[in-house]
């Protein structure tokens, strides 16, 4: 039974009150005294040489306070990639500089080459239009294969458009090739993982302020990880000492990856604030968001699955081209490699896996981690090719997966792609899925659909992902330039209430509600007396932020460790108050009790004593009750799941309707079922959006054709069904204190192949030999596939 309070209870979200009453504080809601506005001049061509920029007319316009061009930042650093990838030949990846403002060349539509600061937005816009930039347009490099084959480069100084050519695991290459050559059956699939725009509903916004008296800066910005942003600005881009820069991410209206990264606009508003001595605000409009937010996915892949005739998997071999766009965004090199290649064994005991990824520069917006980040790409490739293989071999799609699943007695299981899965039970997930989907009734439902002139398909899928990012030692060996621990400070105030400062940032995930549920249960006190403080580098010890479904597994673990330290110290204080040895003091339900007696003090009394240390063992115990912990995970966590959906396809129009969708997930232990279910819903919405609706399209000139909500199809309420979500019987993570795995990305990882598998199944039921359609499965693509089959 679900609990009513504490860990595992579906507490309603406390943050909802402010969001439901219009009392939230998003960055653009903040209005500083004397604030000014920044507007950027952005390239309208995908590739071009900046011949000259004439700002003289703009400088003379009313309200203009300052104008910046790339020349102003030529001597400061670039925005770096956080992960060094080495190519198969051992050479390091190519890392062209990513400047604050484009200098010399513009490299994608939307690339900013100048910025105007003015008293008002209108004045800044007018002045920006008066800036005359002479840009000699060059042919755009858009297609990845052409980029690799051609002799024109996005970055001339590196002399290639290939960022790296990575093999995983390179030592397994020959064995995998040999296994595939000798295999009785090989299924091959070429597919595109479509480029997406994250589209958090709140556009990016940054406000820079400068205090000349202290030579210090404040950046208020739409960030998923203010400490990481501070580190990047301080150590790499601007050289502002960390102790002179505060980064604050207030309420943030969604991120989905796109707000992990540091962007040039953040550096610009800081530099501008210093120059003019007043706060400078920039707010993206939606068009800017489409043109400049880091996009997601964009892989072109060939995958081969070798198996025995009975469906036993022998090898997966994958060749992928991954688009990194015009510049390397902060996680862009990790996403197609260690968040993708390492997952290419899936949930399976397959002995041979080899992945080759070529990362390619193009004249398009940077591409980086978007909800799921590499793992959706891995799952899509694996689960689509398995479905195709099952059809070729005449094996049931569930049976072929079960035949190859890692079994519960095999944990810890080291996959052929090198990860050590600590726990899971994929057969149990599939059992639960089968209970939900009424597979026996499918034939009847299909007949009913056919009676209405519709085709019905059933799609099935299993996924595994790596979350809880990440063990610093391991990622350090793999090329990460940062550690991926997290931190928390638990501050017990004198009057017994708590402030808990956490490095994770909440922008929809409900940390403000869930984290107090955990600390409240550990301390036996009302969660309502605990507040979470997040998003401010001046208040929080440190933090690597929120992404990769890591907040609870990593930062939550730090919070648990800090709370354990609180209990340990409080026990000593209680022992003194009770005139007992600390070893003889038990702590339960908020009371410290001397074993075998009725002598007891409450947590609140101990807190007060800590701050009013009269008659206090000052030589043994410091006053105060505040503890900090940093937590570095021992391993990734491995959420997994089994998904199914039924779709109806209109054969006359190619229109696909999702009739039902079932998601069964293993997230380990569940802290708040309501919130976890909501996270799955959101992931499903984005995954189904990828499968059916969404696609960022550049034309041959590098113009983004889908740069507004009239052109890029966001899922709307009537595109999506009610979902059935079940995460009741997870296997706990074995290496973090809460036994949690992470739930934020699963829905977006597991759903795209489920949908495509279902549509292929529907078309096959009509005798159409359609084995694959690239996403998004628009009516035109589905209809075309039917006509050509």
């Amino acid at each position, binding site marked *: 039974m679900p609990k009513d309070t504490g860990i595992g209870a*579906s507490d*309603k*979200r406390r*943050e*909802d*009150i*402010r*969001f*439901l*009453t*219009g*009392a*939230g504080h*998003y960055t*653009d*809601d903040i*209005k500083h005294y004397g604030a000014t506005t920044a507007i950027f001049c952005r390239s309208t061509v995908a590739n071009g040489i900046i011949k000259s920029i004439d700002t003289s007319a703009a400088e003379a316009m009313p309200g203009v306070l300052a104008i910046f061009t790339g020349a102003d930042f030529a001597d400061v650093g670039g925005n770096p990639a956080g992960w060094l990838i080495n190519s198969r030949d051992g050479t390091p990846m190519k890392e062209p500089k990513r400047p604050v403002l484009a200098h010399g060349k513009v490299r994608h539509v939307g690339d900013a080459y100048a910025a105007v600061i003015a008293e008002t937005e*209108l004045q800044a816009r007018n002045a920006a239009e008066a800036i005359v930039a002479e840009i000699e347009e060059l042919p755009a490099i858009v297609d990845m294969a052409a980029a690799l084959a051609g002799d024109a480069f996005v970055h001339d100084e590196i002399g290639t458009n290939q960022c790296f050519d990575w093999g995983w695991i390179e030592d397994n290459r020959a064995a995998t090739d040999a296994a595939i050559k000798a295999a009785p059956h090989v299924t091959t699939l070429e597919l595109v993982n479509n480029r997406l725009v994250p*589209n*958090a*509903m*709140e*556009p990016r916004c940054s406000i820079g302020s400068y205090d000349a008296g202290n030579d210090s800066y404040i950046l208020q910005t739409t960030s998923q990880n203010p400490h990481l942003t501070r580190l990047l600005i301080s150590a790499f881009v601007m050289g502002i000492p960390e102790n002179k820069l505060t980064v604050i991410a207030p*309420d*943030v*209206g*969604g991120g*989905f990856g796109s707000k992990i990264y540091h962007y040039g606009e953040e550096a610009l508003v800081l530099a501008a604030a210093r120059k003019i001595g007043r706060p400078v605000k920039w707010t993206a*409009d*939606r068009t800017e968001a489409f043109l400049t937010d880091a996009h997601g996915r964009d892989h072109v892949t060939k995958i081969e699955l070798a198996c025995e005739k009975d469906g036993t998997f022998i090898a997966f071999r994958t060749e992928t081209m991954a688009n990194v766009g015009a510049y390397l965004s902060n996680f862009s090199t990790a996403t197609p490699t260690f968040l993708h290649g390492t997952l290419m064994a899936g949930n399976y005991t397959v002995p041979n896996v080899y992945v080759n990824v070529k990362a390619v520069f193009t004249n398009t917006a940077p591409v980086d981690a978007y909800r799921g980040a590499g793992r959706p790409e891995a799952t899509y490739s694996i689960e689509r090719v398995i479905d195709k293989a099952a059809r070729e071999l005449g094996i049931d799609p569930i049976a072929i997966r079960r035949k190859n699943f890692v079994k519960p007695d095999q944990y810890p299981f080291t996959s052929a792609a090198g990860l050590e899965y600590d726990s899971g039970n994929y057969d149990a997930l599939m059992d639960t899925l089968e209970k939900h989907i009424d597979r026996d009734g499918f034939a009847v439902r299909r007949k009913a659909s056919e009676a209405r002139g519709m085709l019905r398909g059933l799609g099935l899928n299993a996924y595994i992902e790596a979350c809880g990012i990440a063990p610093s030692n391991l990622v350090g060996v793999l090329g990460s330039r940062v550690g991926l621990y997290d931190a928390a400070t638990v501050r017990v105030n004198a009057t017994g209430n708590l402030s808990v400062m956490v490095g994770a940032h909440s*922008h*929809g*995930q*409900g940390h403000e509600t869930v984290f107090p549920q955990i600390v409240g249960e550990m301390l036996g006190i009302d969660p309502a007396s605990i507040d979470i403080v997040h998003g401010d580098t001046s208040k929080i010890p440190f933090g690597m932020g929120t992404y990769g479904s890591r907040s609870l597994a990593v930062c939550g673990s730090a919070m648990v460790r800090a709370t354990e330290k609180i209990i340990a110290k409080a026990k000593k204080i209680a022992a003194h108050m009770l005139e007992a040895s600390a070893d003889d003091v038990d702590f339960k339900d908020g009371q410290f009790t001397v074993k075998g007696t009725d002598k007891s003090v409450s947590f609140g009394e101990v807190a007060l004593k800590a701050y009013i240390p009269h008659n206090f063992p000052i030589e043994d115990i410091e006053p105060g009750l505040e503890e900090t912990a940093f937590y570095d995970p021992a391993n990734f966590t491995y959420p997994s799941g089994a998904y199914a959906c039924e779709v109806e396809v209109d054969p006359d129009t190619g229109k696909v309707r999702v009739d039902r969708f079932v998601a069964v997930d293993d997230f380990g232990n569940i802290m708040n079922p*309501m*919130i976890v*279910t*909501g996270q799955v*819903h*959101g*992931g*499903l*919405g*984005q995954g*189904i959006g990828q499968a059916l609706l969404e696609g960022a399209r550049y034309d041959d000139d590098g113009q983004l054709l889908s740069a*507004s*909500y*009239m052109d890029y199809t*966001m*899922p*709307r*309420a*009537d595109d*999506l069904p*009610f*979902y*059935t*979500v*079940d995460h009741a019987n997870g296997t706990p993570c074995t290496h973090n204190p809460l036994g949690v795995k992470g739930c934020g990305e699963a*829905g977006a990882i597991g759903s795209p192949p489920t949908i495509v598998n279902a549509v292929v199944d529907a078309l096959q039921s009509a005798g159409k030999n359609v084995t694959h359609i690239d996403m998004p499965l628009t009516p035109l693509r589905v209809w075309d596939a039917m006509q050509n089959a």
Partner: protein
Amino acid sequence: MASVAMVVNGKSITREVEGHTLLVDFLRDDLRLTGTHVGCDTSQCGACVVHVNGQSVKACAMFAIEADGADVATIEGQANKDGSLNVIQQAFQDHHGLQCGFCTPGMVMTAAALLKENPKPTEAEVRSYLEGNICRCTGYHNIVKAIMAASGQDVTAIAAE
């Protein structure tokens, strides 16, 4: 500059505005009612929905001077007189109909308009009515459920949470 007078959340206000000032910017910048949000520049996302003379309107799609003399309601005026959440707001909290909160004011205002027109909408009617409101967080499941619950319908049969 032109003078505009309107009633906003029951309070009469008069201000000088530029002719090109959008209602949404007037609400956010001049009246500091920042609960009404701007999520796009093509009147597609619905984060800025308010009520003007009882009709739901995208506040990015009209000028402030066009609201001269109008009765305007925003998210800030939706709670009950005692400050507690109204039925729709409460249903959104009860059914986890929001995550990041950015689209939420527009969703609540649109839901209020729907329930005024159609007190017992079906699932399909709710989904159809939300065509002008985009949410990126929830996959809409709990928004649809919350609106149906706010209309007094039993939603316990709608799959988990």
